[in-house]
């Protein structure tokens, strides 16, 4: 087992004046499950491929354990990879697929057999060992691909969107399986995905990337509740955080945010911070999570300074919860997540109270979270 450390790592492709990965610094602890997440082209796969040795590092140092591995060939890095395309060896049966890497490394036959059978038991594919890949379902193939990596007992697992080819139901199931497996194996795992739900549910820690830069590296809870900038705030969470451009003003000792359809007071602690940083009178972006808009009468009565009115353009009832797409607040639709048993209907006007203790305020120019930085 080993940790992984990236020190000022850059990736620049020949002929490109812009780096694909810029000044990537990260210390990944031994046994940690780290998720790299971000939109397409953000550099997450490139970073993983540099760790795997499939891409050369243009600048900086990469450590696996205490060893600098910049110039170490992929096969000598003691890592195992699982890719999106989990290509199995089609002419070999499941047992042979899983044993192949060990055979190549000249492991003893009994040791190979022990590892393959143990991994097959863990992945519940013992009954498939004699089958050829063509006779397997997508989920079974994926488990064999995982098995092929597991038998290696590597220092680090690298997974690049390994669930992308599975249907939604299987994805959810495999997501839980991989999490359980990694906890059991106690091996460092670096997992790339563009799916923030996967990231939030699987990672001990998540690195959000954009345009080759790390935006924030934190636990799922920290990312969700304390995003450092507008990008992270918008990327993490479904439905996404609502953003409303407004102006801060001071009236009768209270700091208020004013925007189309909104005039609400900011709690004292946050207000003081905004005063200290000189934001009174300036335009800012307010961020509100959909679940921080409340339609329950008890909440509205208790929060007279943060009540807003809007009309429901569309409502989506998922049974246990309902999404309301609201008009008349700021420029864009604002989404509220309310109880599925609520009787609210499209076209109806609704009163909602904002939980002002949970709001985020971003600088309009730098897009940094003023209350967190």
């Amino acid at each position, binding site marked *: 087992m080993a940790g992984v450390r990236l020190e000022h790592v850059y990736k620049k492709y020949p002929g490109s004046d812009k780096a694909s990965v810029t000044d990537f610094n990260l210390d990944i602890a031994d046994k940690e499950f780290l998720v790299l997440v971000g939109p397409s082209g953000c550099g997450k796969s490139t970073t993983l*491929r540099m760790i795997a*040795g*499939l*891409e*050369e590092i243009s600048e900086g140092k990469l450590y696996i354990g205490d060893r600098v591995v910049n110039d170490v*060939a*992929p*096969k000598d890095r*003691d890592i*195992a*990879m699982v*890719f999106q*395309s989990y*290509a*199995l*060896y*089609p*002419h070999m049966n499941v047992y042979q697929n899983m044993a*192949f*890497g060990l*055979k*190549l*490394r*000249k492991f*003893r036959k009994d040791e190979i057999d022990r590892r393959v059978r143990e991994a097959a038991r863990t992945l519940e594919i013992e009954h498939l060992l004699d*089958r*050829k*890949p*063509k*006779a397997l379902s997508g989920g079974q193939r994926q488990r064999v691909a995982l098995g092929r990596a597991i038998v290696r007992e590597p220092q680090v697992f690298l997974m690049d969107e390994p669930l992308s080819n599975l249907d939604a139901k299987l994805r959810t199931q495999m997501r839980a399986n991989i999490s359980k497996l990694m906890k059991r194996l106690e091996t460092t795992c670096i997992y790339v995905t563009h799916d923030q739900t996967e990231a939030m549910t699987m990672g001990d820690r998540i690195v959000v990337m954009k345009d080759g830069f790390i935006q924030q590296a934190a636990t799922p809870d920290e990312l969700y509740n304390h995003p450092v900038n507008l990008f992270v705030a918008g990327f993490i969470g479904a439905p996404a955080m609502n953003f409303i451009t407004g102006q801060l003003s001071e009236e009768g000792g209270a700091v208020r945010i004013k925007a189309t359809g909104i005039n609400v007071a900011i709690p004292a602690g946050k207000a003081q911070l905004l005063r200290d940083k000189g934001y009174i009178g300036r335009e800012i972006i307010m961020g509100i999570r959909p679940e921080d808009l409340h339609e329950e009468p008890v909440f509205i009565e208790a929060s007279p300074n943060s009540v807003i009115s809007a009309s429901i353009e569309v409502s989506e009832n998922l049974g246990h919860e309902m999404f309301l797409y609201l008009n008349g607040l700021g420029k864009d639709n604002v989404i509220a997540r309310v109880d599925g048993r609520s009787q609210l209907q499209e076209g109806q006007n609704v009163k909602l109270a904002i939980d002002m203790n949970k709001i985020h305020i971003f600088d309009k120019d730098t897009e940094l979270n003023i209350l967190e930085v």
Partner: protein
Amino acid sequence: MNNTRLQQLQQMIVGSVEIDTMSKSEWVKAGGAKLPESGDQLDLDQGFMLVTKVDNHQVQVLHMQAELTLLEKELLSWLAKQGSMSKSGSVSASEMERQARKLGDWLQQSIDAGEWRAEIPERFELHHRLFDGMIPFLLMSEQAENREPSYVELEKVLRSYLSDDMLLIPLREREWLILGTDRLLAEVETSDGDMIERGETKEALVSLATGLHQMITEEWGGDCHVAVGEPIIPTESLVYAVATLRETVNLGRKFHVGMHVHMPWLVHLERLLSGIPEPVRSRFMDEMSGRQDLFTDPETVLTLDAFFCDGLQRKRDREAPVHPPQYAPL
């Protein structure tokens, strides 16, 4: 190593040399790599250890006590590696490599001369192995120069993946032709053993090539591009197959960035587009500026692909969802 050689080595390094055998765990405990290989070396307080042989449980080492420079150690390590490699196979590895390189040079010359239909002359030692049906794979390594695999290493890995009767032929720098027996296609099938249809053959070839790419990438040597063709009788059409596969990889790299496995039967349109002179293409692109929708519409692409598909043009004209003459200006 016999006593004479041991003494020769002692004289050369001006020091003592002992042959020692240790278990793998002892080797690891002494600071050696977890998976020892011939040529691995280990500095000790007194002297230097060099792995000469690795068995299932044990490691044979030469324990040398002498003042050696880094270069001398590297040379000894290299010799040990070569020694272990040449022991495998009935034809020595270096002889096989020589024969394969000779054939590779001829293939390259034939392609350069435009003799794509040339048959392999009988003078080549490997000629007798090229009469059976074989699947041609072209492998282009993306590894940095200093990580280019040796012939022997690569052949060993490919034998494990394909079978002992495969052939590895070096073509150019970081470019290799791999010939695998066409019996592999039957092994891809599940169990019923029925004859496989043409469409299924292609599907099986894709999965073999994808597996090969994955194996090279994951288990062994890093990133690469792989192209695969339909089975051939190499004596008759190897030059053509190599030229086609090389063109396929080049088109794949140009038009399907991010893909690493390429098939000749999937790059018809790309071949056509690639043949358009640059000024004509630029002019067309200028005129079509803002009309990228044409190239992302699957139906249009499918129609163009079908229309220009080799040998099936007339038949596919009828099947195409949009009538082809609409695209005549292309």
